[in-house]
């Protein structure tokens, strides 16, 4: 509040310089494009070291209390730091379930004991966190979670299966949504929220091989897994409310997250930059009218997305459907990303048939992998089809 523009400007310059100086060199193996793609120990250790370094330099958890490893300053500093991370294209902050979900929840509502026990490990990347919301048969219908947690003395006994657990095989803790009461009238009222240990008997995190051939998620099986009763957050039956609160933190530092960027944005510039090396019919590809026209279409689309973010902040220009831009944003961005990446492959000629691991694959197979990974965003968090329903019903008021 009392921060001046000048201070912020100076801070930005300082972060920027640090990022520039400390951005790690290419490690010689493919890095994950998002926190959902950490598939090897090699990647994990590299990212752990990088997050630790950023935290040690004071650029993570800036708005969290100093006593738990945070910086104790205004969130706006973190926002700036995050922007600079993205701008300098530094590696991602992989431990995002801790930094952006579990951490802020503990800061906001945790006990003193929980804060002491968990927060610093999240920031330093010592403790990796995962998320246990989705289940195999429920798609994105979280309220329908079936995994059971039964109180037995000072423990809960957990039985059931979670899926799409990011880094489930590496994580030390999970934020777990489980059913403590199967007989409530509203299905939501039977859910409870736990900060569960992962490295205990009865929990098996089986890596899921993705479309890309890589890993990043697990299917997580609980078989009579016993966790201390004090792992519960809040009271029994408050799980749904807490889970919904958790999802709010995703909105970034201003909403309480510890910061860090969790995915590499792939923009049209990345594509255009590389096209100079491509040819078609023996001529530079960028001289082909059809390719040019397709690129211009994509540029217009990406520019409109970017300008949409600006316009969303201008009240008088959003009076028709006030939440149209923010609510359709995930749909528009993820579908654009998918098409753009698919198009990128189409430009590579015979080399488009090569894949990650081939020395001659353009950009190491970056676009092939990026295209395949784009489905995690058009499917996860509500498929594009479901998102379209939501926009149609909530924004346009069309009947269900």
């Amino acid at each position, binding site marked *: 509040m009392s921060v001046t523009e000048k201070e912020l400007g100076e801070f930005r310059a300082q972060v920027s310089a640090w990022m520039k100086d400390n951005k790690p060199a290419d490690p010689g193996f493919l890095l994950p494009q998002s926190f959902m793609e950490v598939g090897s120990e090699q990647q994990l250790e590299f990212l752990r070291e990088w997050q630790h370094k950023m935290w040690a330099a004071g650029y993570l958890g800036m708005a969290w209390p100093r006593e738990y490893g945070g910086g104790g300053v205004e969130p706006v500093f973190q926002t700036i730091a995050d922007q600079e991370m993205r701008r300098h294209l530094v590696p991602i902050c992989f431990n995002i379930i801790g930094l952006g979900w579990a951490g802020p929840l503990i800061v906001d509502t945790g006990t003193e004991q929980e804060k002491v026990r968990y927060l610093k490990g999240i920031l330093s990347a010592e403790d990796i966190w995962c998320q246990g919301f989705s289940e195999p048969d429920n798609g994105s219908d979280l309220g329908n979670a079936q995994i059971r947690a039964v109180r037995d003395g000072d423990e809960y006994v957990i039985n059931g299966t979670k899926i799409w657990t990011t880094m489930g095989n590496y994580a030390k803790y999970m934020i777990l949504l489980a059913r403590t009461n199967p007989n409530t009238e509203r299905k939501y009222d039977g859910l409870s929220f736990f900060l569960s240990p992962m490295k205990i008997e009865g929990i098996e995190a089986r890596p899921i091989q993705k479309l890309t051939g890589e890993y990043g998620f697990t299917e997580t099986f609980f078989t009579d897994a016993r966790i201390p009763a004090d792992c519960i957050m809040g009271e029994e039956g408050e799980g749904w409310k807490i889970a919904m609160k958790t999802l709010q933190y995703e909105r970034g530092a201003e909403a309480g997250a510890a910061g860090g960027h969790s995915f590499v944005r792939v923009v049209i*510039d990345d594509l255009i930059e590389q096209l100079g090396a491509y040819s078609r019919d023996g001529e530079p590809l960028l001289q082909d009218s059809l390719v040019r026209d397709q690129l211009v279409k994509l540029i217009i689309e990406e520019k409109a997305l970017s300008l949409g973010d600006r316009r969303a902040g201008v009240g008088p220009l959003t009076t028709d459907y006030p939440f149209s831009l923010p609510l359709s944003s995930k749909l528009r961005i993820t579908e654009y990303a998918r098409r753009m990446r698919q198009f990128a492959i189409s430009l590579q000629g015979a080399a488009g048939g090569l894949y990650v691991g081939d020395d001659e694959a353009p950009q190491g197979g970056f676009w092939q992998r990026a295209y395949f990974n784009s489905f995690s965003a058009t499917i996860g968090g509500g498929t594009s089809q479901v998102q379209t329903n939501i*926009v149609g019903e909530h924004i346009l008021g069309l*009947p269900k």
Partner: protein
Amino acid sequence: MSVLGNTTLKFSEEQAMILDTAREFCRDKSPVSAVREQLDTELGYDTGTWDEMVSLGWAGIALPEAYGGSGLGISALVPVVESMGRALLSTPLVSTALAAQMILRGGNTEQAERLLPDLASGTTATLALLENADWGDTRIGCIVDANGTLSGSKKYVMDAGTAQLFVVLVEHDGAPALALVRREQLADGAISSHTLIDQTKRAANIDFSGISLADADLICGETVATALGDVLLLGALLTAAEATGSAAACLDTVVEYLKTRKQFGRLIGSYQALKHPTVEMLTAMDSARSLLYHAATIVTDETLGKDAEIACRMAKAQATEALLFAGDRAVQFHGGMGFTYECDAQLYIRRAQWVQQQFGDSLHHRKRLAALLLD
């Protein structure tokens, strides 16, 4: 530097007030019944409505105060034109504004002082640019000879039936020039009206042959080419504004129908086959609107730079596509009703066909964008 380039979007309180006033005015003055009443009138608009618009200051809103305008620039005109597009309200506002911009940007001070105050206070004017259907054809067949005599004709002159002043693109002394022709100089029968697919619009062929011009009514020199370039972009921008408004209104019409019409026992808006394309209309319109107000943010009275050119072309390309899609789907989604003249969907699909061509279609603009962005 990103290929996205300039991505500023600002909207002042003044613009917000103008938008508010314009939307309310257009809604009041131009309900669809009023639009339909004008479909087969000669002028295509209600002169009383036009007079009120003039008295609200909109004719001169983009002109400098020195010439009787409000000095708010084109960026203040955009919300007005968008609102008109939304209400399908046709008036000579855009034609007059573009003719005024041509004089402002191309003419000398004497010409501006002599003509612009009239235009700012409601005298109607228009541009006469095309000699064939090709917006990309830069040849000029209309000639002003050494004696100041005009020969040749122009096609697709908007609002020719009402314009008091014609700004005519001509060749003079081997270079592009602009002839300022007053309505009373036209020969009898010089105007022959077009039948347009968008029945809210009016345009005509005009034969300018034989008209004698005073020196003061000819704009020559280097300013002509830059003024022409700018005005073609501003024309694209204002057409985009109108199209964006029309696309939004078309969407509203579809949504309204989908929320009330039942088929096979269900509200038809519950069918994803209709719901999902309707969401596409929304996102296409949203994109058009974002690009539109970005362009409105960066165009100025100065010669338009590369950023402004990119912005105007993108706005036109996107708005065109958004309205073409919306109009086409509006007819289809209204079912049998959509196939009637009585259904408002026809107003939008017809507007869409006209809009796509006015000041160049999206292919035209994307081709130029490719050169601006990729070379």
